[in-house]
């Protein structure tokens, strides 16, 4: 009787329910704690083997090493001997010799309309270059020669905004190394040759970009299932 009165005063329903919850919640927390403590296996992240990049391919050296200058004159290999140009070119070349170019067959001349040796090389002294005015200049001053046609580029280069500048951006703290024209461009073939790209990035970080064709849902067929790999295979085939 007494207890009935008491419980009715406090409200039997909510109180009983609350105590039932109390009994349930305690073990639930215990279970959660145990799971966090013991269970909780680490997530398996599928990922490809990382690609290694050879340090030698990350060189900061100039891309070209123009032929060695000795006394300001170039030295080139002729029949496995190092020679100055003037050691062979000590006699004037005939028109026919120049036009047919029987020597120096490995030199590919792809420089636009500038398609003749003596536009740049001084025929009277092969150890020097020649400006369009007829003035002879040493090989070390090659930017002077290039500027005669590539004026705006030369201006940019002087300001440091054409071509790479290695070293220090702050010239007061250290040396700036401005690469010269021929340290990047082959004067006979000034366009940059194509290069092999270093490996792309696979993985969860970049999956959201993916292949545009695959993302647009245009095509789901391909040589391989993985959309990332498919791009690779297809683009390689296009290259061949």
């Amino acid at each position, binding site marked *: 009787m007494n207890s009935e009165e008491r419980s009715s005063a406090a409200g039997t329903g909510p109180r009983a329910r609350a105590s039932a919850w109390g009994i349930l919640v305690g073990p639930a927390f215990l279970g959660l704690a145990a799971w966090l*403590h013991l269970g909780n296996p680490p997530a398996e992240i599928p990922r490809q083997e990382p690609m290694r990049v050879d340090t030698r391919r*990350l060189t900061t050296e100039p891309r070209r090493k123009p032929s060695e200058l000795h006394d300001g004159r170039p030295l080139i290999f002729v029949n496995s001997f190092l020679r100055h140009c003037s050691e062979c070119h000590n006699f004037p070349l005939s028109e026919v010799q120049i036009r047919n170019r029987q020597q120096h067959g490995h030199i590919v001349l792809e420089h636009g309309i500038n398609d003749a040796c003596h536009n740049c090389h001084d025929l009277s002294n092969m150890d020097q270059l020649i400006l369009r005015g007829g003035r002879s200049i040493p090989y070390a001053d090659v930017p002077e020669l290039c500027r005669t046609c590539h004026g705006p580029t030369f201006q940019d280069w002087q300001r440091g905004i054409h071509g790479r500048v290695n070293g220090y*951006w702050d010239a007061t703290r250290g040396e700036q190394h401005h690469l010269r024209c021929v340290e990047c461009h082959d004067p006979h073939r000034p366009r940059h040759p194509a*290069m092999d790209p270093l490996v792309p990035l*696979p993985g969860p970080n970049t999956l959201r970009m993916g292949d*545009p064709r695959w993302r647009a849902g245009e095509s789901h067929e391909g040589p391989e299932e993985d959309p990332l790999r498919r791009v*690779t295979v297809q*683009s390689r085939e296009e290259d061949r």
Partner: protein
Amino acid sequence: MSAQESGRDGVTRRSFLRGGLGAAGGLAAVAAAVSPLRELDTGDLTLERLLQKHYKEMTPEDKERVLERIRNEVQQRFEVRPELRDLPPLPGVEFAYALNLGRCIGCRRCVHACVRENNQSRDPEIQYIRVLELPRGSVDVERSEHHYDHLRVPSPDHYYMPVQCHQCENPPCVKVCPVEATWKEPDGVIVIDYDWCIGCRYCAAACPYFARRFNYAEPSVPKEELNPDMNYLSNRPRRKGVMEKCHFCLQRTRAGRMPACLEVCPVGARNFGNLLDPESQVAQILKTKQIFVLKQDAATLPRFFYYFDQDM
């Protein structure tokens, strides 16, 4: 009768059980919550690191203590004693970057030079720079492709756009950080205190350039490839669960040097310098070239400028 008894003691069997179970559950939960503390002396987490202050609140002595701690940690982990410094921003300097899209051939030398310089994780791979391959005649980055893998680049009818952190003047990533673990330095570079980051990744979601990278797993860097030239706010080794991104190679640029991505570029497409110096190369480019920024409509005011310039 029984009610009278219980009233006398104030404890019924039910309330005793309830209380006991609740207390045990609570204790277990607390134990689980503080379980990382068990690692205190055994490994990764030290009490010092746990109690470390925010970078901006550290006194010089605090900083030196923290740097020493990190040096020891790195030595323990990589068996290399790093040259760890905390280079301050230079007065009168605001960094800016300019990139000539007419020159870039998409060879990814910059990407991997950056990985090497900034001790990014090799497994899983983390890279700050993404080189987008775009069809010629459009600047629609939605149609770009950055997993291209040709035998030779540049591929015909494409051009390449490297994207890295733009160090925005109005950075959305800084605004969303709930703990101020990332902020803009006086020289304009957005930095991250890797010891303060809680790994919520809000900043990565806020960045319109997808420039931020998260360490989802414990980063791994081969011991022999570790770059010992380190700076607190830039390329010191990170841990799992923190954000990282391009910081214009602060360990180099605050010492006056060029960033690593620039020095390796085989076509010289990259330019870096002090925006406030009118004679600097970057200032010359801004003056003489037709520059543009990526996603101008996002109003982030990047410090990273692109231009097309393929003169003969």
